[in-house]
Every structure is written in C-alpha cells, then in structure tokens.
C-alpha cells in the first residue's frame, strides 16, 4: 500500500509575513492560484518552532479540494536573501520581530506522508525566491504560482478524513503539536468555532479545559449500589409474587353438606403444569370453567384477544367444582 512516489508530485508553497504586511500566501500551488482558492493556506498553516519535525496537515479548500500539506518553519536569515537591497532591509519586521517563513509542499489529495527532507529542501528554493519578491513590494505583491516537482516522500493513500465544514477551509493537523512554540494551541477553537489546527488530542483536552474540568457524574459512582439494591428489590417483589401465586386466588363457597375429603375442586390460577397455557403479556389468562357434562374444565378466552387453547384433560371432580367442602368443625 505504501509507496515511494516517483510519480507523485508536490507543489511548493510559502506562508509568511513581511516587514509590514501580515501573514499571507506568498507562494501557492498553481492550480489553487488559477482557481482563486489559495486563501485557506495562511488560515491553516501557521508557524511552528523552528527545528521541529515537519508538520503534516490535511485540509479542504473553500472550493472543496482536498490537500495534504507538509510544512516546516524557518526564521529568515540574512543569507536567505540574495538581493543585496533586500538584505539591507534586515531580517526583522518593522516592530523589530524576527520574520518566520512557513514553507513546504502540497499534495492534491488526502494521503499519509512520511516527509522526505529532500522534498522540503526542494520547496525552499522557490519559496525564498518568492519571498524576496514579496519583500521588494509588499503592498503591490500578488501570490506566485508554484510549479510541481517529483516527490520523494512516502505517500500512503487513505480515506478522506471527516472534516467539518465542506467549504470553510477546515483542516486537521497531524505531526508534532505546537505547544512550545508560537504555534496554534489546539482547542479553544477560533472565534468560537471548532479548532482547525493543532493536535486533535490537544484540541479535545483544551475543549475540556476551556469549560473547566469535564463534569463528573456523581451518580456514576453510586450506580452499582443503586443497581444492586434495585435488583434486590425486584427479586423480593418476584418472591412475593410467587408466594402469592401459590395461594388460591379466591376461595369458592363451601358446598353444603360436603366434607373436606373426597372432593377435588377445579383450580383457577396461573400456570400449574398440565392445566393451562401460561398467560402472556398483554393477554388475560383463560378463565377455567367446568366442562359440560362434568368431564372437566376447559379454557375460554379472556377479555383481550386470547384464543382459547386446548388444555390437558383434568381429572373429573367427584363433586361440584364450583364449591369446596366445608372444613371440618373444630368443635
């Protein structure tokens, strides 16, 4: 899958501030310049600490084009300026601050990159040339369109990242975070929006930080106890239900003259094996009535659409099933 890309081509770019003008795209891939779609570069590519490993950023331009950018930061040195006039102007801005250049190459798709130093070196030359032109006339300067060069970096195709906002120049940045430099602090987002650059983990941490510590749910710590107690409660209720079920639901009236022995009343109640089908939720258990001809009992439908089900035969009672024998007198 991974390939050293002899056919892959990268386009140099440069984002930098001048002595007077603020950060802007000085050099941009020709296809972005042609489409007037390069404004996203300075909004996503910011300076890191010089000497840090190259940064890899993925972004989508306002026109929806996906890009992979590999960048590095360089503080302008006198030797970077070939024009003696430019060199005489110094390497600081009008406020006495060092000038930082963010340059690198762009690849016109979303790929994972193992940047080769040689590619960044190759991008530096056109970047410095464009920067010299920029310093010569900052106010009248127009972006320079860069031409592609063959890449030596390892490119690995990957699925397009889920980037928020199709047309807002959103970006994600991999590689070294910017903490420690003047780079972006991922996290608080920009202008109240989502963070665009910076390590995603740092962004997440900062988002938590911005609103204070992530709220801890106090109920979570007690959850096992609550669940246990609730389970005990349910178990106890089931036990009660079971015990209640073992008792006759209602005592039939005593039969006149019948004794406690020799009678077998029909049993009305739930689920005694061999007697009735168990009731199901949403149904009412069939009501047991005496079978015609005294041959036993049959089930008839309950109120809620329960079909009558055949039941196992019940031994015929020796006495009327609608009454029970009176208990023997205690006297």
């Amino acid at each position: 899958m991974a390939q050293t890309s002899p056919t892959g081509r990268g386009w140099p770019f440069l984002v930098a501030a001048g002595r007077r003008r603020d950060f802007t795209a000085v050099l941009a891939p020709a296809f972005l310049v042609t489409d007037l779609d390069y404004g996203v570069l300075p909004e996503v590519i910011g300076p890191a600490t010089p000497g840090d490993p190259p940064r890899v950023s993925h972004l989508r331009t306002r026109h929806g084009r996906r890009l992979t950018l590999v960048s590095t930061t360089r503080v302008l040195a006198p030797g970077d300026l070939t024009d003696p006039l430019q060199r005489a102007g110094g390497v600081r801005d009008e406020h006495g601050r060092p000038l930082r250049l963010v340059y690198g190459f762009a690849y016109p798709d979303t790929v994972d990159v193992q940047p080769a130093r040689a590619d960044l070196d190759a991008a530096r030359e056109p970047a410095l040339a464009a920067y010299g032109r920029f310093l010569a006339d900052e106010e009248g300067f127009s972006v320079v369109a860069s031409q592609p060069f063959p890449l030596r970096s390892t490119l690995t195709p990957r699925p397009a990242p889920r980037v928020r906002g199709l047309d807002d120049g959103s970006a994600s940045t991999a590689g070294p975070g910017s903490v420690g430099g003047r780079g972006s602090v991922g996290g608080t987002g920009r202008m109240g929006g989502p963070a665009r650059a910076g390590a995603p983990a740092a962004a997440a941490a900062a988002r938590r930080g911005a609103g204070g510590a992530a709220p801890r749910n106090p109920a979570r710590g007690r959850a096992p106890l609550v669940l246990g107690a609730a389970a005990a409660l349910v178990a106890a209720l089931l036990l009660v239900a079971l015990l209640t079920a073992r008792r006759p639901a209602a005592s039939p009236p005593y039969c006149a003259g019948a004794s406690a022995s020799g009678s077998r009343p029909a049993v009305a109640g739930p689920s005694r094996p061999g007697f009735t089908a168990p009731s199901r939720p949403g149904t009412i258990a069939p009501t047991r009535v005496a079978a015609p001809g005294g041959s036993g009992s049959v089930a008839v439908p309950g109120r809620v659409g329960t079909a009558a089900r055949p039941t196992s035969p019940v031994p015929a009672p020796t006495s009327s099933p609608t009454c029970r024998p009176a208990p023997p007198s205690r006297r």
Partner: protein
Amino acid sequence: MAFVVAVLVVAAALTVAALVRPRNRPDPAASAALERGVPTFRVVALGARGAGKTLLLASMYHQMQTPSGRSYFLTAPYDQVILLNQWFTEVADTSKDWPSGTSVADTREFTFAVRTRAPSGALHSVLHLSYLDYAGGLLTDRQAPGATLQTELLDRIGTADALLGIIDGYRVRQCLDGHPEGRMRLQQTLTAMISLMMLAASPITFVLTKWDLLGDIDADEDGRLQIVRKLLMSNPGFRDLVEAHSAHRVVRLVPVSAVGPEFAEIDAHGQVTKLRDGHMYPTNVDAPLCAVVPDVFEQVERAMDRERLRAALADIRGQSRLSPAAALAQLGTYVLGTAGKALGAFGPSAAGFVGEAVTTLFGVDDEGDVHRQLRVERRVDEADRALDEFHVARRKVLREFQSRVDVLEGRLPSSRLSGER
C-alpha cells in the same frame, strides 16, 4: 416467610431511596449550574499588526492571575495559562528577540474567569471573559481569495459585548516625531477601527499601548496623555466616533505598557529593542478590562436575572410531575444553581416566594407533610444565604473594577475622552 420478604422489600426500598437522595455535601450538579449561570463577556480588541494585542493579553493575565491587593483574580484553562506564561517569559527574556507576531492561523479565543473568595472561603466565578487573539492583518490587509477568517472576525466584532480599540503607541510616537510612516499607519488603524466601531452598540474603550515609548514627550504623565489625546481628536473620524458613543456612556483612552518604563527603547534605527538589563513592570494593563466590564455587566445583569428567574419558575412547576424525592433533589439544584441567584437580585422577599413555590409544589395540606415542608424551606434558606454571599462578592468585585477606573481618571483626567474640553 411473608414477613421476612416484606422486611426485605422495605429494606431494599430504603436503600434505593437513600442512594438516590441528594447528600448534604456540595452537589457537583449544583456547582455546575452555578458556573453555567455566570455570564461570559466577549471582548474583542481591534488593532493593527504589531499594536500589542497579544502582549497586552499576556501581561494582563500575568498581572491579574493573583489578587495582589484586589479581591479578585483571573484564571484560565491550563493550556492557555501555559501559552500566556510562555509568551510573557519570552518577552521578559532580554537575551531573546521579541516574539513573532500572531499569524492568521494562530487565531484563537482565550477564556478567563474572574474569581473571588467570599468570607466563608468559598471561591466564586463572578464572570467570564473571552478575548479573541488574532493577526492584526485580518483587520487591515486585503484577504486572499478563498479566505474566510476575516468574515468570521467581523461577525465576532459585531456580536462582541465590548470593543477595545488598540492604538499603537509606537505609531503615535512616530507620528509625533514627524515620521510619515507613523502618520500613515496610525491613519490606517483609525480608519479600520472607526468603520467597525461606529456601528457597534457595545461599550468601547481605547487603549494606547507602548505607553513607555512616549515617556519623554512630557514630564507630566497626564500632560503626555493630553498630547496624544489632542493628536487623536484632531482626526475627524475619531472625534466623531467618540462623540457618537459618548451619548450613551463614557469613552476612555487608557494608556498601558505591557512591559513598563524600564524595559525597552527606540534605537537609532527607529526600532523598538529590549534593554539589556531591562525589567518588566507592566503599567495599567488591568485597566482596560476594568473600564469595560462594569458597563457591560450593568446592561446584562437585569435581563440575565430576569431570564434566570423565569427559567427557575418553569422548572419548579415542572417538578410537580416528579416524585417528591426527585422533585426535592431538583428543587435544591435549581435553587442553588439558578433560581436563588435570580432571586437574590430581587431582595429578601425572594425567600418568601420560594417558600410559596414549595408549598404549591408539594401541597402541604396534611399534617404529615409539614415536616417535609420544613426540610425544604431550610434547604432553600441555606441556598439563599449562599447566593446572597455570591451577590455580595460579585458587587464587591464590580465596585473594585469601577474604583480602578476612577483612580485612573483621578490620576489621568485626560483619559476621559467624552466631553471634549
């Protein structure tokens, strides 16, 4: 057997109730609700590249992160604290260059909590401040095709609670020295500022940065400020802007120095350089916030409290659909977090109102409910006391903000731009 089961059921039910019942210890939910009720003011500083927006921010935080004789101090998320301290340290190191300017991609928002400790020892956040740090070129430079941040910045300016107009003291100095570049840059800054601030309904304050670079234009500090004020007011657009906003509130010009008078100088090439043995003594860096916050707070406080009260009443009414235990827990949370604060603004009669709400809520007609009512009322009273404390602390902080501005105005009468003399 049945008896044992019944005992088991009762015991389990009691356990569940005890676990679900809110404890006496501070409820994190209530604390979170309290934090949620604290307003956030969005402050945007308008200034050109190099005007000192970022350094002012770092210096302001550095000075206000401890009380230092005040009743309040600032806190920020830790990653932001690290960044701000790093910038401040980088500036303070005289062996290093000035930090590079904020790049467009570095645009970010900082959030500060203004905190105070009440007599009880409780720490309160009385308000939050968000401060947008961005590249000044977004205001003054033309943007490349496909760029979007300038539009976002303009949106933020339009919805800000307060605007700080950052005027670069270095440009003023150049202007006073007859340097054409200074005059041109100052004009550029003022033009950008005027067009945006003229439309703003929010309070505005002008901040004159790099005050230390103007130290030798007059021996008297107010005399210096008067010179600068005269220069600025000679710009018709600036004068009109001040007059437009003066109709509603006081407009100030606050001179600040993020580094103080003994740290930097303008060298022979006209560039600002650090003194080799310079020491940082920031000047007035807390004053800009002190100038804008009381104005903003006054505007929003009443509306905020009214809204909170409305929400609290709605929630209390909603409790009647819950079980008494859950309703009690919810009531406590809301009284602590929302209703109480709102009620505090309505004075002592508020407690009586809550009592009535509780009575309605639980329907205490039966003698058996009296005990429960007393318990709820006790809880409400405790919450109300805590919230009274919060209000007192907040008032104290706001008075200190105002007092800071009054002291500045007493020392530098020219800082008051309203009512041109």
